Each structure stands twice: as C-alpha cells, then as structure tokens.
C-alpha cells in the first residue's frame, strides 16, 4: 500500500504487461463520483473500495444500484470524471480512450449476465477473441497452450465444453449454461490479472449456478486471476473470500433506499 502511495500517478508510465509484484491491490478506489450528466444526482459515490491480489470478492447489490456502471469505470469503458481509481496499480483516470481500451484488452476478462457470445463466430473463435485485440494475452495464451487455438481448447475442456459436437454447434444453439462457460473461457484466455463477472449466474438454475462458480474459481486460481463477482443473490456470498455490500459503500445509492 505504502509502496503505491510513494509512486506518483504519472510514475506508472513505465508500467507495462504483467504487474505481479508491483501492486498489492488489484483495485484501489477512492472518492469516485459519477453521474451520466456529470452533475448531481450521482449514480455512484464511493469513498473507498479495495480488492487485493488473488482475492475472490462478491460485490452484492440490487439491480439498478449502479454496480454495472462501477464495473464499466473499472474496465475503462466509461471515463472517470471525479476521484481516483487504480487498477493493477495504474491510475485509470489519466489514461486516454485508446490506452484504456488497450489496458482492458491486456488485463481484464469480462463475463456478462447473458448473450455473452458473438453469434456469427464459432465456440473456439469466441474464446480466442481477446487474443485478437491484445498481444499480451495472445503471447500468454501461446505460452500456456502452444497456440491460441490449443489454449482455447484446453480452457473449454476444463470448463466441460470439450466435446467436439458441442464445439461445432452454432453458439446461438448452446444452452445458457454452456454459453456462460464459453464466456468464462473467453474471460480467462491469455491469463488476464482481473476477471470481472457481472451477474454471470442469474440466468442459471441453482445446481448449474454453483457448478459454474466452482469451475470459475478453479480456473481463476490456476491462472492467478483476481475475481470480482457481482450479483444481487446474497445466497452465493458464503462461497467467496469476502463480500462487499455495494449499497453500503455507495452513498449515492443510500439516498434512494
């Protein structure tokens, strides 16, 4: 923590590729305020939030409370207007649009709630997609599996999606559970340091839900990835290392509840 404070924001300019050993906190957020118009009322007003390396954090909050917006800020999809947000030791707020896109491509794997896959790509092509946008992840995938295709296959096998007939099917004909596992493989390929899952299990039934979470945990552990798992379903909380109640930390949301 102190190590990070000693480095000025601009000191992270030499930051590149992997960040292991550099930052203790994968996410270090302070004084973030955000509204779509740039003026009050704010959707997000979070004083502080930290996620340590290797942690599996459960971020709980009701739908519409601004969780997804917070994730978009972390991933650099939306620019930060107020406050400080360090991801992997790097201040996201000072990055330009292109740099944020490259940072996301290199370091963050994303899993959405539903419709995670590009309908016109095959299962394997969907998994390999991040390697088309990031040299870092392509290099990591090649190092781990020999080639991007083999690494994609390996991840699919680990997520019980190894059967050839399943892989040959158009992605739109896969069950929701299968689609989510393909999305998980895509989020994990090329070993990104941070995996963000936005309600990935809300369209799965209870049995499949815990099976999916077990698989996700196993793979995050293997790839040494930090996991931020967002859900409104409090029953999942005990599975995680730590739970953050978004309603508690978000002062903007508190006013409404």
């Amino acid at each position, binding site marked *: 923590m102190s190590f990070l404070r000693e480095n000025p924001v601009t000191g992270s300019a030499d930051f590149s590729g992997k960040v292991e050993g550099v930052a203790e906190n994968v996410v270090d957020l302070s004084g973030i305020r955000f509204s779509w118009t740039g003026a009050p009322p704010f959707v997000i007003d979070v004083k502080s939030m930290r996620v340590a390396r290797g942690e599996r954090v459960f971020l709980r909050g009701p739908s519409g409370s601004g969780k997804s917006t917070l994730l978009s800020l972390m*991933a650099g*999809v939306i620019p930060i207007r107020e406050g400080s947000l360090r991801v992997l030791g790097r201040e996201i707020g000072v990055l330009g*649009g*292109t740099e944020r*896109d*490259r940072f*996301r*491509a*290199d370091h963050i794997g*994303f899993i*959405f709630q539903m*419709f*995670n*896959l*590009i*309908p*016109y*790509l095959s299962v394997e*092509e969907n998994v390999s*997609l*991040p390697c*088309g*946008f*990031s040299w870092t992840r392509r290099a990591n995938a090649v190092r781990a599996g020999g080639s991007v295709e083999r690494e994609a296959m390996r991840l699919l096998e680990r997520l019980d999606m190894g059967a050839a007939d399943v892989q040959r099917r158009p992605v739109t004909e896969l069950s929701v559970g299968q689609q989510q596992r393909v999305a998980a493989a*895509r989020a994990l390929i090329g070993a990104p340091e941070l995996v963000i899952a936005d309600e990935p299990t809300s369209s799965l039934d209870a049995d499949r839900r815990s099976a999916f979470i077990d698989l996700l945990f196993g793979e995050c552990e293997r790839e040494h990835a930090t996991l931020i798992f967002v859900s409104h379903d409090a029953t999942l909380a005990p599975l995680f290392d730590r739970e953050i109640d978004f309603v508690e930390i978000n002062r903007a949301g508190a006013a409404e509840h």
Partner: protein
Amino acid sequence: MIPALAVKSLRNRKFTAVLTLLSIALAVVLLLGVERIRSEARAGFASTISGTDLIVGARSSPVHLLLYSVFRIGNATNNVRWDSYTALASRPEVEWTIPLSLGDSHRGFRVLGTTPDYFEHFRFARGRKLEVAVGKQFEDVHDAVLGAEVADTLGYKLGQSIVIAHGAGDVSFALHKDHPFRVVGILARTGTPVDRTVHVTLEGLDAVHAEQNGIDASDPLAAALRASEDSSTANANGHSADASVQPESKRVLTALLIGLKSRGAALSVQRFVNEYPGEPLTAILPGPTLEEVWDIVGAAEKTLLAVSALVVVVGLAGMLVALLTSLSERRREMAILRSVGARPMHIFGLILGEAAFLTLAGIAVGLAILYIGLPEGNAG
C-alpha cells in the same frame, strides 16, 4: 481481426447482405447502362453524316434543313432549282456534290432520289463509305438500292419490283404504279437513317413525276403540261436507259451535300449560297448544326441520367437503412467487442468495412452484369 469479423458477420446475415448487394448492383447497371446508351446514341447521332462540308437547301432554319436532309424528319418547305445546283457544282472550290430529292415514300420508308455520286462521296461515322452488301449500285433509271432496315423489314430480295408513292405517309393513294423500280442492291447496315431509305435515281423520279402530272387530269394546268410534254414522256417510256425523261432544267431538288477541295473555303461558299441571287437558299455546316440538334434531343437523355443517378442514391440509401437497422440489433455484439478490448475505431471499422464491402461487391457485380449481360453495341 476486424476484416475477418466483418466477413463472418456478413456471412451470418447472408440474406439481407445479398439483397443489399443486388440493389446496389442493379443501380450500377442502370446508371452505367444509361450512360453507355447515352454515349452510343450521341456517337451514333454524330456519325450520321461525315465528310460533308456544306448542306444546301431552300431557305429555312439550319436545324430544319439538317433534320429533313440528313435525318429524313419532316419535309422541305421549298425546293432547290436545278440551275442553282449546277451553278454551285461548277464553283471552283467545290470538289463534289450530291443532289438529294426527297418527298416520296415506299410503304412508310422515305425514297431518296440521287445520283451514283451518293455512293461515291457520301460518308458517315468518321469517313466510312456506304457499302453494298448484296447486288450493286444503281445503273439503270429504274434501279433501286435499299437500306438494310428497309430490306429486313419488308423482306425484299434482289429483283423485287417496288412501287413508290407520292408523299411521305405510310398510306398514299397516289401510287406511281406505271413506273415500278427494281431492287438491284441492298446496302450494309450503317446505324444511320440511310438504313431506312430507299435510294432511286433522279431520272427514275423524274419519270414518276412526269407520269404523276399526267394522271392528274382534273387539273387543267397539269393537263396542259402533259400535252406539251407528251412527246418526251413517250420517248422515255420507249428508251428507259435514256437519262433525260424530263428536261433537266425543270428538275427540282430538295437539298444537296457539298464536299469542298479545302475546308477553309466552307465559310466563303456558305456566304455565296446564302446570298445566291437566283433563289433564296441556306447553307449549313453539318457539325455545329448537329450539336444544336443534340442540345434539343439531349435534354431528354439528361433527364434519364438524372433518374438513374437517383436510383443509385436510393440503392445506397437502402444499404444505409439496412445498416442502421442492424446497428440497434448489434448493440450487444458491440458491447462484447468493447469488453474484450475493441476500440471505438474497431467497431466503426467493422460496420464501415461491411458497408464498404457490400458497396464494392455491388459495383463489381453490376459491372459484371453490364459487360457480360449487355455486350458492347447491343445497347445502341
């Protein structure tokens, strides 16, 4: 990465992609097809007459003179006397002359009375000479040479006997039945009004018109003329090879084409004709007058071009609509691509790349249809 995605995305939406592509292709076919027909029409128009330096007719507007003498549209308001013709033909600047006598028809086709000079000197399409496809040029007074279209339409062969009628109409009651002409030649196709013309000798026409005067018995003047000319007409009937069935001095022409020894003399000869003391005449330079006529005809064809340009606009607008409709369907896809690190430029490139591909492929298909489906020359 992005081009590969664009191709796969298009393959996924084959049906709309193919429809869009075809609409662009058809728009291109229409635009270029019209443009080609236009340029061919213009070239064909300009090639109607070539090598002629001056066209002379009775005093009238230049456009009118060109239309009736070259395009066989409309009729002359007045004739040119034979002595005016000989006066002009004997000018030192004049290399050749072609006398033209119009005013008769055969089953809707114009009959042109002329001399063998016509086949010798008339040129079209950058100096091409008339060619006789079958048979020969006329030698005898009652010989006729048909344009290609006349022969095709009426199914005439060599040796066919034809009767010409007075006036240009399709149906005429004044048939010159006693003086049939015999088809001795059929010209090769030219793509000009020559194809739709029946060519006969001036002498043959003289004979016909002498007879015309003869049968018009209700007209006392004609009867009187007939009486005075009886002897020469009888003579002609007995000796059909004799050229002068009617005194040449009484012969009238509709127009004449003049070739000069030097083009530089055109303006001075034109002035001579326009100020000719014997009778009021007009001489025109074919080139500028053709341009003038084209300006009139060209308005319609410009409209056609504008319409096909609009079709292209509609084709592209259709593609734009398809594109914008797909944008809302593809918001999810864009969010996924953004999440794996695609920049806004990538997304823009993907959408634009697909549109560019459809447009280029549409143009390519359109060109293929145009050049394989409508070979050169078919359009004209």
